[in-house]
């Protein structure tokens, strides 16, 4: 499989929630996206847009049952003979509020859950747990024998993420991992994710409702609304369309509005600013002339 093939491909995907019940509702109505190896891609959309539903197709929790195709690492996920266990090791999925999945008495045991389920031997498991815990900022020796539920909220979140990393996935999908986290914790988390990408070469799919997260982390963004892909492009391209973003229930960062309005007033600025620093440089160009 050449590296030119996308590792994940979603074509016109449809999905109905609670099919066959009085509560039936259309979830996805034609979602499209593509992730290539080594990329950091963002999926943004308001609550209920269908983001979680899309990413749960990536590791086979949900299968395409109606229309559309999902190809993960070359495998057609509609095919019932696909080795889902193998996919789940390669595509690690971190859920929203991941700390809610912790159940073992000791932190180390919980992080080891995944590797043990994979059938690895104790030594290999220990190595992976050590690597995963160190990389999320919970030093192995210090935290492995701590009581899981004595940890702070942020520490529990890290332990949960370590639990997924211990599988050594090639692709890491993070579903709203910054939800409910305060600004300081959020910065830390985003920095850790960037580290995972840069040092370990993981392909990252980052789902969020927060535009500032996208600016800080991803190269490319898909915006999802009403169960379909409504915008796609580089972060800068997406940022240059505040009205469109608002229409889809997404907040436009202030910088986006500032640059857009300056452009509308006739100033020759590049609207594709994603950070304040970039905006500063652009504005300075017109003040300094």
């Amino acid at each position, binding site marked *: 499989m050449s590296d030119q093939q996308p590792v994940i491909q979603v074509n016109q995907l449809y999905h109905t*929630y*609670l099919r*066959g*019940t*009085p*509560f039936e509702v259309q979830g996805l109505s034609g979602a499209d996206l593509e992730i290539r190896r080594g990329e950091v891609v963002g999926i943004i959309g308001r609550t209920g847009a269908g983001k979680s539903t899309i990413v*749960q197709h990536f*590791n*086979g*929790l*949900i*299968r395409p049952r109606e229309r559309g195709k999902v190809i993960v690492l070359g495998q057609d996920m509609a095919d019932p003979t696909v080795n889902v*266990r193998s996919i*789940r*090791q390669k595509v*690690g*999925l971190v*859920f*929203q509020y*991941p700390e*809610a*999945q*912790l*159940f073992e008495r000791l932190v180390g045991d919980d992080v080891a*859950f*995944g590797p043990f*389920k*994979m059938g690895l031997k104790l030594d290999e498991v220990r190595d992976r747990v050590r690597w995963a815990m160190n990389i999320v900022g919970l030093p192995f020796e210090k935290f492995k024998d701590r009581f899981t*539920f004595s940890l702070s909220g942020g520490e529990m979140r890290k332990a949960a993420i370590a*639990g*997924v990393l211990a*599988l050594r996935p090639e692709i890491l999908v993070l579903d709203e991992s910054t939800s409910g986290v305060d600004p300081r914790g959020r910065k830390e988390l985003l920095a850790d994710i960037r580290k995972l990408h840069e040092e370990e070469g993981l392909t990252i799919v980052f789902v969020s409702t927060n535009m500032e997260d996208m600016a800080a982390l991803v190269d490319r963004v898909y915006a999802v609304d009403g169960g379909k892909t409504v915008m796609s492009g580089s972060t800068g391209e997406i940022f240059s369309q505040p009205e469109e973003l608002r229409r889809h229930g997404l907040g436009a960062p202030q910088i986006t509005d500032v640059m857009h309005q300056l452009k509308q007033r006739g100033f020759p600025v590049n609207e594709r600013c994603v950070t304040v620093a970039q905006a500063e440089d652009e504005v300075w160009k017109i003040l300094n002339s």
Partner: protein
Amino acid sequence: MEDFEFLRNVTIGQYLPFHSIVHRLDPRTKITVMLLMVIAITFNMSYTANVILLIVSFAFVILSNVPPGYILSGVKPAVPLIITLALLQLLFYGDQYVPAKTVSVTLFKWGWIHVTNGSVQLVVVSTLRFLQLMFLASLLTNTTTTTHLTHGMEDMLRPFARFGVPGHELSLVGTIALRFVPILAEQLEIVMKAQVSRGADLGGQSKLAFVQTARMMTALVVPLFIDALRRGEDLILAMEARCYVGGQGRSHMVQLHLSRADYIAMGSVLIFAIFMVAFQNGFPV
């Protein structure tokens, strides 16, 4: 078990805002009807009686505009359990029950296994009873908002307060439990998905299945339990912040009125129940 959508199976406690005669009945009527039906069901072991009771229970469902398929889908998770129990009863309970007006006829015997007409009847009747109770219970909670239910229960328990029965507190506990059923069901779905994503196998492989299942249960029950406790803690604070101090001195926005339909419903079910109990041994089969 690839399909995780739990909400679809949680039919108890989910109020369905349709319009029907049953929806409009006073909750006290519905509670009374259910109690009367349960009494009638308890006293009747014959095939005929149970078919009648099933038809009557089903009639209530039709009258309430609740899709029977919806209620039946709520039975699905319990089906393996029902089948196991049914088999146990069928195979091993031959000596336990002799149908009225007949003798015990052995249909099959081998070692401990002893199938008689009695055990067959036991199994069939138990299954029918289960369905009747599912219809009645699901009916009660699907057509009555939990606040109406609790008001109804509270009202009916009020005369017993002098004997120390905490009617209001019990009703509130019931309300809150019912309110959080769908929330915890969703949470369970999330926890299951998270554990499966880490490689847990909920489909169950045959070898070592029991050991694995016990461990898997921990992986599901512990997080769910902790989640429920956290929500409880939060809820207590919220209730205190809204001046909840128990049942004393509380007023009620929801007011209950008994109408003609209520009296007719209670009256007819009362007559039916009396008949079923009095005639229990008079049915042919």
